[in-house]
């Protein structure tokens, strides 16, 4: 018998939300997965070369990660998430991931499914399709999916609890910043991680917007914006409302040029007057020194405002 195919997972965009689900699903079906390496200069450069120049930094990185998988895997797994909740949608980038990759790297074999609840295309149906394409018995697929789903939920709950505990135990004199960003920015080794490291070096308590209780954040987001229909941005601004009493400042990390964020952050700046806001726009030409200076001065302002000597 021939070897089972190897599935490639690009370490970018949705990976930061669904990594546990994806890995566990393929593992229990007996497939080996390969995740692209942590983001680095080379991956970004490859991505910049492969992508249309006006794409956002996150998508450029994504293409770099896809390229890093070429030759190492048989399939690249690219879910297309269009709509997670009725009347809502994701950024249009997520609609087109498969098509962009297909047109950019025609030699790659893709494993795709479509997630669009408004059109009745639910996640489980998508995974059934993936299983069928790999020649797996549907019952086995569904079992693997449920198991993976549970593991994903446990992992998320664990992360959220960790943050909740941290928020509750933080000493009152500490400087607390809510890092408001998409997970694929805030946890990317090349983007958010290095920024959060600078914050940690300055003894700042970091809260992440994506770890706020999910349902509550979604409901609270209405207080800032009634019309917002991007699911991930909704969760972000909901987190601002949720942590409002527990933070000294808000740090937005944005990939240039992020379409939804450009509007949503402007709305927040117009609406939130009581908490200092800093917006860091990240692009491929970023220098570390400039970032560090801006972060330091922002933290200084927060500490000054809190009445502590620096």
């Amino acid at each position, binding site marked *: 018998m021939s070897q089972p195919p190897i599935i490639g997972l690009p370490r970018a965009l949705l990976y930061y939300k669904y990594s546990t689900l994806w890995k566990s699903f393929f593992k229990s079906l007996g497939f080996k997965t390969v995740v692209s390496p942590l983001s680095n200069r080379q991956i970004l450069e490859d991505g910049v070369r492969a992508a*249309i120049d*006006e*794409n956002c930094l996150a998508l450029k990185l994504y293409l770099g990660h896809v390229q890093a998988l070429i030759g190492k895997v048989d399939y690249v797994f690219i879910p*297309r998430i*269009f709509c997670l909740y009725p009347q809502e949608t994701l*950024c*249009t*980038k997520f*609609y*087109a991931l*498969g*098509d*962009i990759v*297909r*047109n*950019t790297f*025609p030699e790659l074999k893709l494993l795709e499914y*479509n997630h669009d609840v408004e*059109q009745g295309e639910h996640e489980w149906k998508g995974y059934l399709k993936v299983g069928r394409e790999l020649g797996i018995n549907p019952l086995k697929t569904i079992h693997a999916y449920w198991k993976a789903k549970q593991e994903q939920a446990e992992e998320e709950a664990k992360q959220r609890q960790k943050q909740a505990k941290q928020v509750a135990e933080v000493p009152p004199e500490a400087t607390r910043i809510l890092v408001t960003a998409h997970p694929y920015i805030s946890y990317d080794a090349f983007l958010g991680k290095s920024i959060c490291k600078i914050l940690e070096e300055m003894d700042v308590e970091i809260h992440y917007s994506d770890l706020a209780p999910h349902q509550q954040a979604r409901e609270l987001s209405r207080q800032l*914006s*009634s*019309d*917002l*229909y*991007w699911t991930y941005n909704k969760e972000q601004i909901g987190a601002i409302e949720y942590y409002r009493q527990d933070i000294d400042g808000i740090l937005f990390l944005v990939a*240039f*040029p*992020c*379409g*939804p964020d*450009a*509007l*949503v*952050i*402007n*709305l927040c700046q*117009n*609406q939130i007057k009581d908490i200092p806001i800093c917006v860091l*726009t990240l692009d491929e030409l970023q220098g570390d020194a400039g970032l560090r200076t801006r972060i330091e001065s922002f933290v200084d302002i927060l500490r000054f405002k809190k009445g502590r000597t620096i």
Partner: protein
Amino acid sequence: MSKRIVSIGHLGNYYVAVKPILKLFADEIIIPPRISRYTLEIGNKYSPESACIPFKYTLGNFIEALDKGANLLIQLGGGCRMGYYGEVQRHILKNLGYEFEFMKLTNNTNIIRIAQDIKQLVPSLSYWTIAKQIYLAFRKAAAIDVIEEIMRLNMGFEMQQGSHERLFKAYLSKLDHAETLRDVNELLAVFQKRFASLPLNKPENPIRIGVVGEIYVVMEPFSNFFIEKEMANYGVEVHRHLSATEFIVNNLNIQKRIKDAVEASKPYSQHYLGGHGTGSVELAIKFAREGFAGLIHVKPFGCMPEINAMPALHNISRDFNFPILYFSFDTLTSETGIKTRLEAFHDMLMMREDAHVR
């Protein structure tokens, strides 16, 4: 209650078409001044830096209208981030100290909802009157589209320079005053004849080029630096296939339209790309198959759906040996740059034609 002074953003010449609807509930209609550099400057000044250019134009329109005394603004949009413009613009304008109400006809725009919104504003109106006026507006838009199509096809071959434009201006001002469906239809018939009688010097197989892209910059000539006119002046037929009529008819059954467009875009694009991105891929394939000489793709800088379409367009261009010129508009785009690139594109198309590449 105070007087309702209504205003709406510009999009090509459609301000003429929407008036019958606005008249239903407006005590006074203020059409903002035609888009100018000033519109863009003032809009840009108060917009988020990386908002796309339609946001800046419409915000500029609104500021100019508010300065003239408007107090009820109407915002259309949907599809990509256009659907979210409304709320963001409202907060920006309120922060600038303007007093006004906002009527948002975004996402899920359908005629029944528009009718209900109007009925809420003016309860004394009957649904019959509302429906009649909406239909009149639609007919006016359709009539504008018919005439503009003639312009695009023939303007480049006129014997007397400017004859088409002069006639079009006359038509618009007459259409603006047409009050009934019959007037609109008669006017259209009369002017179709008058346009047909303009002397032309058109070869049997003229060079044809297509224009596709994001709906706002395609339809608002100021925002695309009048590329259709510019291109026609080189003596080519300009085809567009994207108009208010098309947009409205498609929106009656948007799910089916999306399905058809995706089907027509295969194998280059297998899913809906958002906004009008799939439409661009679909049209590019269509134009390439029909033997057009080339294609111009226009979009605002950072337009997400159109960027999604671009990798597919690159491959269509390669597979069909079909030249595509890409334009991206932002606040700093210079007219000279556009003109130079159009000229070079045209020269290249002519050389290919001469060499019988196709």
